[in-house]
């Protein structure tokens, strides 16, 4: 549901297209039933990990003994390089997300919702603020919504820029006014989150699915998918493709269909070489993976992750070493410095990649890079930033080894003319 001119849907337009019907239906169920419906719909978190949304909600303490204040937090940080899907949802149809927030807050009986937005999303913030006041006037936000007895307060918080703000516990720290350092789990945020209260953090796109599950039912939602898990997905493509952009397609749409049909294929003179399927922290997929269904399970089976589903295409004229160097520069800069392997390892990796790119690399450097992919890999650091940073490096060393070696042997970037 979007307008073609890029303006946001007003509340009237949204309602005419069936908006806020899901919310009306939601109040006919009790909160636990809604959580079950979201589970049955097989909605998987769209923030990158693909965890079952209904299952996550089911960990929140419910009933009379539960703490009075609970929070629903919207993760609109979207700082994963190459990712631009949530911006579209926020700018194009803010009411859809608000409806998702209200239903989800009702399901976990949260009395406060906080939308955490990255600083750069000025237009999103303005449009959301307007949408919130429209929804308040219409009686969808506030006290005793639609005579249900349910109350919700919705506020917007804008970030001051740090990738770690997107990690859910880092986000909680930022909302408490601190540095966005991650926290140890357990306790999980569902039990002890923002200001020590039970909190659910969900991605923007995840919440935008919820009104449709309520309105049309879990089976309908599940049936939209073409792979593992329910619903449609916002896929995206950037790089040297003809029609870069965002496309809403059934979850499980194959990679080659995405590139050839929706992204319009490669620009003349460029050939597809590989792609990161879902942002900077995912492993490369190459021509051997073109048939893969882009759902969480199938992409994992190829040794990568669906992540955010916004693919970044590497073409045959772009240097894979330079490509990975750019990514590692980002990760090194955004490391929060909490654990030594990440704080010291990432700048080192960045430096080695730069020297290889500049024609000053040594054969031993490849071994050092390889060691880092293990030493900063899953389970070796406090949060998922470091393993995420190693994903593109590890897969690049595997698929583009000859490029790395050619740089070292010829003492230059083999993609630059000289």
């Amino acid at each position, binding site marked *: 549901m979007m307008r073609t001119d890029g303006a946001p849907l007003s509340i009237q337009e949204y309602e005419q297209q069936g908006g806020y019907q899901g919310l009306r239906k939601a109040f006919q169920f009790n909160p636990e039933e809604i959580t079950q419906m979201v589970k049955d719909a097989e909605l998987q978190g769209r923030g990158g990990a693909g965890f079952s949304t209904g299952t996550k909600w089911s960990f929140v303490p419910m009933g009379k003994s539960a703490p009075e204040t609970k929070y629903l937090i919207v993760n609109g940080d979207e700082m994963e*390089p190459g990712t631009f899907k949530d911006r579209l949802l926020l700018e194009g149809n803010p009411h859809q997300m608000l409806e998702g927030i209200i239903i989800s807050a009702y399901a976990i009986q949260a009395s406060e919702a906080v939308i955490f937005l990255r600083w*750069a999303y000025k237009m999103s913030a303005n449009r959301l603020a307007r949408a919130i006041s429209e929804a308040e006037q219409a009686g969808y936000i506030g006290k005793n919504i639609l005579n249900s007895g349910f109350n919700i307060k919705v506020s917007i918080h804008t970030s001051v820029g740090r990738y770690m703000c997107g990690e859910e516990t880092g986000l909680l720290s*930022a909302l408490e*006014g*601190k540095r966005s350092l991650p926290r140890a789990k357990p306790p999980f945020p569902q039990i002890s989150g923002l200001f020590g209260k039970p909190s659910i953090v969900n991605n923007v796109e995840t919440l935008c699915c919820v009104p449709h599950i309520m309105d049309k039912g879990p089976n309908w939602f599940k049936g939209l998918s073409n792979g593992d898990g329910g619903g449609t997905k916002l896929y995206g493509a950037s790089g*040297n493709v003809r029609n*870069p*952009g965002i496309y809403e397609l059934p979850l499980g749409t194959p990679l080659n269909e995405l590139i050839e049909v929706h992204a319009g294929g490669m620009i003349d003179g460029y050939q597809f070489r590989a792609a990161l399927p879902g942002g*900077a922290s995912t492993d490369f997929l190459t021509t051997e993976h073109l048939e893969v269904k882009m759902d969480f399970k199938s992409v994992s089976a190829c040794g990568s992750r669906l992540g955010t589903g916004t693919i970044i295409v590497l073409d045959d004229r772009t240097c894979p070493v330079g*490509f990975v160097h750019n990514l590692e520069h980002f990760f090194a800069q955004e490391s929060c410095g909490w654990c030594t392997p990440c704080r010291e390892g990432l700048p080192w990796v960045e430096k080695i990649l730069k020297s290889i790119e500049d024609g000053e690399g040594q054969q031993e450097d490849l071994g050092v890079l390889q060691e880092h992919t293990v030493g900063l890999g899953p389970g070796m650091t406090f949060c998922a930033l470091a393993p995420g940073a190693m994903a593109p490096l590890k897969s690049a060393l595997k698929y583009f080894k000859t490029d790395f070696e050619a740089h070292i042997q010829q003492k230059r970037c083999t993609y630059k003319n000289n």
Partner: protein
Amino acid sequence: MLTEKEIAKIDLEVSHLPYKGAACIEALKIVQQERGWISDESIHLIAEYLEISAEEVDSVATFYNLIFRKPVGRHVILICDSISCWVVGYENILTALKNRLKINYGETTEDDRFTLLPIPCLGTCDRAPAMMIDNDLHRDLTEEKLDDILNQYQ
């Protein structure tokens, strides 16, 4: 001293929060909006007002990319240096900008008009290369467009 306007805005934030210190980031944003950047003096004023230590405020201020601990020009250019912009050649735009403004990253033009800084992905990768100047997003950048864009900011 914090101005009345700054205090009013900070108080409003504090009123939504369980304790004063939780407004630290908001207070930094508010003071930066008023004064352009965060000086050592501002750090102390905020710390005193929120009843937390100056070290704590400083550690928060230096942690975040968009809190400026050095004076900046009237306009701040944030050019995206992340992957999708790199693939389509943001480096040429950056070089052109540096040549036109005669500054490097982190520097301010002599007339105090522009400060140039890199920023990670601006979330508009389908229309790369991209940059923000103050609150405005500029996309599909080409060298030819730069003069017109820069002229909008005096």
